[in-house]
């Protein structure tokens, strides 16, 4: 089918010489198996995809999409008609370029997994959790394997394809009225760590039983990578999005070259990491992916750009166009690494001595994306005393601002983990206010 799409796209490019056209094709086959109440419950398979066509007319871009590639001529006509109404400025499409060779995107062992295999994995996971403590129940969970193929072709000679596989799983273990949840994803079946889901979900459920209130006060607070990802997604990421900066919706507007974080902190977007969950050779615009130093030793070096935002600022795209076939390219990170060169330690809990470790928060999406202010309920946390976990905590909240928070970073663990787009260790922050 891909060959037919290429031929049909090339034909449309020839027929519409005066209209720059872009074709983005995507196809995903997905297998899922679900766990409910301690056992495999349902399984599913889906194969779906489509093609999006972008047309540029008089310097403005419009988009149309269809699921049936046979509709390409009609889709092109609609994209051209939409471009005539649009005022989305885009003079050009990205030109032909070479793409990096990114390793570890495909694992044929994942590609060949079907629902039957995942059902077996579900049963195995339930068994492993039960073997830790008979009173544990896996209330819900799932395994998912996917194989995606994407292709971009444009009038400027860009023509590239890439494919990738991924496996992910998550489970919620329940112990009385306490629950623990953990999620993991990998591009390689060999490196996929099911046991970490078992151990983490079970530990959080068992240790989280009978929580106590701790009142209001300030203390050194550790946040695990999953919590950092939640906070970053709704505060820091909108702030470095060039489109939001251009529209005055970022507190980092006009701050390029300014020191915005402590000098022992750096943040880099790297789509070229071997087996990175969001690694790839090209972005949604067909721009070659590259490593981007966003914050280096505390200084803001650049925002993240897709092709359209880069054209507007007269800079080169950072290759951060993201999105599917049914929408225009948006700006998003790939694998965003947070590094702290100050105090590192193997065992942050023992290092902190007296404080709090937060494993989960609720309500990150209520943060203010312009100012970076957040106010979150702490849903899974433990009080640390004498260098070890003392007891679970309930009815607490934390409130602050992302830049103030990162300004108080005081230590980093060695447990660098990728959660969604964020690659981060557990980080410690001094003097964090806890409301209870």
């Amino acid at each position, binding site marked *: 089918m891909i060959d037919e799409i290429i031929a049909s796209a090339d034909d449309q490019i020839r027929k519409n010489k005066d209209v720059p056209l872009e074709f983005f094709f995507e196809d995903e086959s997905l297998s899922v*198996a679900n766990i*409910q*109440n301690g056992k495999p*419950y*349902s*399984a*599913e*398979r*889906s*194969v*779906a*995809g*489509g093609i999006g066509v972008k047309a540029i007319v008089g310097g403005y871009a*419009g*988009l*149309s*999409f269809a*699921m*049936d590639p046979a509709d390409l001529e009609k*889709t092109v006509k*609609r994209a051209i008609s*939409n*471009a005539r109404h*649009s*005022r*989305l400025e885009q003079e050009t499409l990205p030109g032909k370029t070479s793409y990096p060779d990114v390793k570890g995107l495909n694992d044929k062992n994942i590609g060949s997994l079907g*629902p*039957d295999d995942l*059902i077996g994995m579900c*049963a195995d996971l339930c068994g492993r959790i039960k073997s830790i403590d008979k009173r544990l129940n896996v*209330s*819900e969970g799932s395994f998912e394997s996917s194989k995606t193929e994407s292709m971009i072709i444009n009038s400027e000679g860009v023509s590239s394809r890439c494919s990738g596989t991924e496996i992910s799983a998550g489970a*919620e273990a*329940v112990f009385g*009225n*306490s*629950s623990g949840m953990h999620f993991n994803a990998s591009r390689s079946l060999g490196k996929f760590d099911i046991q970490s889901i078992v151990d983490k979900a079970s530990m959080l459920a068992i240790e*989280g039983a009978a929580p106590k209130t701790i009142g209001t006060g300030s203390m050194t607070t550790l946040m695990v990578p999953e919590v950092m990802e939640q906070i970053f997604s709704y505060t820091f990421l909108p702030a470095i999005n060039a489109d939001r900066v251009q*529209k*005055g*919706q970022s*507190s980092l507007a006009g701050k390029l070259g300014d020191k915005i974080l402590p000098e022992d902190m750096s943040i880099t977007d790297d789509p070229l990491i071997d087996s990175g969950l969001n690694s790839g050779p090209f972005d949604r615009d067909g721009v070659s992916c590259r490593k981007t130093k966003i914050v280096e030793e505390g200084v803001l070096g650049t925002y993240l750009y897709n092709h359209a935002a880069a054209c507007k600022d007269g800079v080169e795209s950072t290759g951060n166009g993201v999105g599917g076939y049914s*929408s*225009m390219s948006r700006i998003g990170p790939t694998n965003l690494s947070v590094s702290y060169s100050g105090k590192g330690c193997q065992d942050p809990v023992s290092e902190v001595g007296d404080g709090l470790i937060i494993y989960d928060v*609720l*309500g990150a*999406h*209520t943060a*203010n994306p*312009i*100012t970076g202010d957040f*106010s*979150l*309920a702490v*849903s899974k946390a433990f009080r640390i005393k004498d260098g070890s976990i003392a007891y679970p905590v309930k009815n607490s*909240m*934390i*409130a602050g*601002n992302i830049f103030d928070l990162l300004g108080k970073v005081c230590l980093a663990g060695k447990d660098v983990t990728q959660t969604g787009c964020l690659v981060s260790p557990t980080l410690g922050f001094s003097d964090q206010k806890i*409301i209870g």
Partner: protein
Amino acid sequence: MERNENESKFRKTLDSLIEEGARYADIRSSDSSVCSMMHKNGKLEDVSTGDVLSIGVRVLYKGSWGFVSGNDISRLGNLARDALKIARSMHDLNGDETVSLSKEDTIDKDLAYKYRCDLDSVSIDDRIRLMEAGYKGASEGRPEIGSVSQRYQDARSEVTFANSEGSYITSSPQYCCYSVLCNSRRGERAEASYDNHASFLGFDDMVKADTGKLAAGAAQRALDLLDAKSPPSGKMPVILHPSIVGLFVHEAVGHASEADSAERGSILRGMIGKRLGPDFLDIIDDPSISGKHGFFRYDSEGVKAQKTQIIKDGMFRSYMHSRETAGRMGVRSTGNARAQSPLHQPIVRMSNTYLGNGDHSLDEMFCDTKDGIYMKGSKGGQVNTVDGTFTFGAEMGYMIKDGKKRRLVKDCSISGHILDVLKNVEAVSDDLDIDGTGFCGKDGQAVPVSDGGPHMKVKEMVVGGKG
């Protein structure tokens, strides 16, 4: 509307699944034309149109489910066979025989949706005019409004549901959705406010909703917030506006009352017939309210939409059910099985969920509050249904001192425990307003919902402010 041409194909496929051993099967399909637009700072920045086709086949073999979906209806036979194969594999492994679906009426119906202004006859320019009115409403006479972002989407769909028991339901709903986000700026200070309108009442309802007025309201709130400070933190009495009451009812009570959540160990498991709050507390889910965002006439299992009294007179009365959870608990489905699209499996979901009227007035609630906070404007929330913790964000609020509204505060979050808060409800007013319009996410599926209620006063909640 003419009978969907796929009927004989669907019925034949379902019959053959039963012949091959399936206990139950259903097919859902949808064929939509969609249009979406983004309008930023007076300019139309995105116009996208497209066709979306999807089909899903679900098979119950003994006690196990298999589900296959795709966007090629011509492959229906293969999808059905694969779904049965998956269900058999699942059964081989778990040997589950316990699933028994609740008995429901067989429905054979073409649901007529009549639209005065069919989306087919609405031009791109008609749609653009909605945004132009919105931009004018927000920006005119408000120089401190730095940006106005508007989004409009509509969909015209042909939807079919068929099951192996003989139900065959077709409908052709038209959906329109508008949202606006206004950012204000004064020096280093920046704030934002949001509003939206969405319904299945057609394009003329969207015109009536008056995007200019919606956007002007959001812009004014964004300006007001420039003068607001963060609230203090700690425990205090709170009065919640209907927008936040809706959020509480949905996030805290609604999710824990979904039968599948209860089965997985939610805080409301085993609570039927138990007292959860004062006797003036009623919580209801009702998909049949036609102008609201959570409206539907039949759920994704072909069960008729109905009003469900979750809490009545302070007592917990009913979970929300799919046919499977209802079957297990020996009751009828409440018609709450919903799927985002035929590419997703139906699961237990809310629709229009609200707190019923009480008999206090808002003035009385204020008079009875010496020190506290009044919160309004939903910024969303989240809940852990197992341990009962929830949080939600309010766009703005007012500190209350000696029964009077005082200074404006912003970015207020509250958290609490579901059962504690229900017990601590002190008063409910008589000004019901079901105006919360949004999408609820669960198990990776988003479905349209609405929520609301009158005002509600709670004795004490944790407020997480920076002040």
